[in-house]
């Protein structure tokens, strides 16, 4: 019966006009989302090109490297795991350095085997690697900034403890260790007075199941330790894309506000122009709730048709404009697309805002007194 009443509303000439209005608004959402999907895919594709095959992982026991404390024996436990490749425990700390009259603060890194460490970092070494507690090698940036050469004596001070070391070599790796002083880990333990590591670096064996291996490692870690993965372009790309999505979400709120206001106008106009029919239905015994439901149902039908039509219009329109732009300017290559969940999101949010917009007029219509105007 209700469906029959609904036909009275749907047969009006204005229905197609109302659907078109909602469709135009939904088209705006569809085109914005389709461009975003394309940009997202581009960013992810670019990022995946840089995704390395063998990643380096770092275990830290604090917010920053120099504040981190870990038991160096953890490195031995890691070595016993089947998926783990190279493992190195390192002690890194800031130390006051004096070379003759020059004083500065520098990062000092203690490693178990300086020669092996430098070779792993593919270092060019001028001189020889430090082998005992009285020797150190320094990165080329420290060497150049403070004019330190092979054979120089450097005086390291940390929390009141001090150590004099002879520079046996200068190295260049083009990585972060070029600005550091590298010493054997025993020298670092001696100077800091603590036999603790700052970080443990490890890599996975080729073909290892990453999530399985990291789960195994995580099982060995103390509560305050965490695994940091280096070089994650895809993660970075996703975070960047989240910023664009946040912007789009904010903008689509404004579109939905207009959809709600359009729905308000459509419902108001419907009630205005079919007031005779509504009153007649009421005179024939239709309850207030039925009138309210009828108007809401009408708006749902208009919003559903409008958002389906709008999504199609928006997508096709954007694709056509992109194709035209590519044709006019060959450097622009865009292929916008809409993912099914995005189309569903547009449909549901449009219906929701349309219902919100039509509630006040539908409520007013349900409260109408039929006697006045009919008579």
């Amino acid at each position, binding site marked *: 019966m209700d469906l029959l009443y609904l036909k009275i509303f749907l047969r009006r000439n204005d229905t197609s006009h109302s659907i078109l209005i909602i469709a135009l608004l939904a088209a705006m959402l569809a085109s914005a989302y389709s461009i975003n999907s394309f940009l997202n895919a581009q960013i992810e594709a670019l990022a995946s090109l840089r995704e390395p095959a063998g990643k380096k992982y770092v275990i830290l026991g604090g917010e920053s490297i120099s504040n981190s404390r870990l038991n160096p024996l953890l490195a031995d436990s890691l070595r016993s795991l089947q998926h783990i490749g190279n493992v190195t425990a390192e002690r890194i700390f800031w130390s006051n350095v004096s070379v003759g009259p020059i004083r500065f603060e520098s990062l000092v890194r203690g490693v178990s085997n300086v020669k092996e460490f430098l070779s792993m970092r593919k270092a060019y070494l001028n001189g020889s690697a430090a082998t005992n507690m009285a020797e150190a090698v320094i990165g080329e940036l*420290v060497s150049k900034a403070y004019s330190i050469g092979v054979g120089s004596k450097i005086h390291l001070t940390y929390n009141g403890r001090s150590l004099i070391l002879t520079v046996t070599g200068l190295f*260049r790796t083009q990585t972060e260790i070029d600005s550091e002083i590298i010493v054997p880990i025993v020298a670092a333990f001696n100077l800091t007075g603590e036999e603790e590591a700052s970080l443990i670096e490890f890599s996975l064996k080729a073909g290892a199941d990453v999530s399985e291996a990291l789960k195994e490692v995580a099982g060995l870690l103390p509560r305050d330790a965490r695994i940091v993965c280096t*070089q994650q372009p895809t993660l970075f790309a996703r975070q960047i894309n989240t910023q664009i999505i946040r912007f789009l979400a904010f903008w689509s709120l404004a579109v939905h506000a207009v959809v709600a206001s359009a729905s308000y106008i459509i419902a108001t106009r419907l009630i205005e122009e079919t007031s005779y029919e509504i009153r007649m239905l009421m005179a024939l015994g239709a309850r207030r709730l039925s009138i309210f439901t009828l108007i809401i149902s009408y708006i749902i039908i208009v919003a559903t048709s409008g958002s389906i039509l709008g999504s199609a219009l928006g997508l096709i329109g954007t694709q056509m404009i992109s194709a035209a*732009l590519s044709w006019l300017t060959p450097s622009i290559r865009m292929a916008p697309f809409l993912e099914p969940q995005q189309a569903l999101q547009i449909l549901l949010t449009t219906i929701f805002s349309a219902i919100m917009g039509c509630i006040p007029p539908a409520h007013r219509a349900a409260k109408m007194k039929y006697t006045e105007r009919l008579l």
Partner: protein
Amino acid sequence: MGLTQFKYLRLRRILAFMVVLTLSSMLSSLTALSLLSFYKGLSAYMGEGENVIIVYDMGSRTPFTGLVPAFLADKIMAVDSVLACSPEVIAPCIVKGEPIFLRGVLPEEFLKINGISIIDGKKLSPKELNYAMIGIRASEKTGLKAGDKVLVTGVLSQTCLELHIKGVFASGSPLDDEIIAPLHVGQWLRGAGYNHVTIIRVKVHDINVQEEVLSVISKASTEPSREGGQTQPSGQGSFEQAPVRWLPIRFRAEDIGVEGAERFLIDYMERYGVTRETIIVLSAATLIFSGSVILLSTQALISQHSREIRILRFIGASRKILVRDLTLKIAPISLLASALGTTLAASLLGYILESGLLQILSHSIQIYLDTYTIILITLSILAITLLGIRTATK
């Protein structure tokens, strides 16, 4: 016959009409202002003033991913009208779980091009190797302040390093969202070695020096490469004090571009179809689409008053008089609603941008209020309203 004294439009209906117009105007203004702010913000990203030119890699897909031989900075510095030459590496990284761009620079040269004011701590000095300055907005985002030590993880290279934050700065530009560190730190995070930088920014007396710079680059491309050499210093002039050393390397002169700072980014945006024209077209499309709602609401307003209008017609008001009267009564409402919508959009956008909720590539956008765009939106809304009056009274 004048109808001005007849107050037949009901206040409640007018208010509903105004709300619809305000929302439509807000949507159009929001779209136009945010797109224009994004465009303006990004195009001003590389330099302040007109006398900054950029030497960049023409083959790169984004302004952040190109590679230019670092030794070109020595050659460009020798050109007469060059006031400052800043080789820079822009590297994406993760700091405290946030995506941030770190800019590796030679502090002395960088500060000759960009004026910054230190809010907390001190400026970066040339000999500091593991220190950095952080922009005010990046500092608010990450919670870092002067004196903190922070873990920085590379995105493009397998780098995990610690930096000591020396100061917090404000520049009133997109730099406020970045970390400024010594050049070599950027090079580690970029993973391309000491012989390359992302861009070279050059401050010149006269922007027309571009041709001269291009000829210097062309000449440098014929120099023999010394790549593979180990510790020979090659920095010249003011770069001699820089801790990092670079060597002449082989490159193709046609891969290197020289552009004014603003033009440089506009070129990149144009590659992805982002031009001032497409932004205007997009905003116009939004206006047309939401314009249908304005048209409908105008017609609905008149249809709601059809009884009153019929009475006026019955007592002798012609259609012409009626249209004139409705125009006189509705046009000010339309103008008021447009102004309200634009103000609402601007303050909403301003608030959201100020709170750092909206970012593009980890850089906050500064709101840009374009008077012509606002006038255009207001006039278009007025025109659509008047069209609505005409069609509804037929």
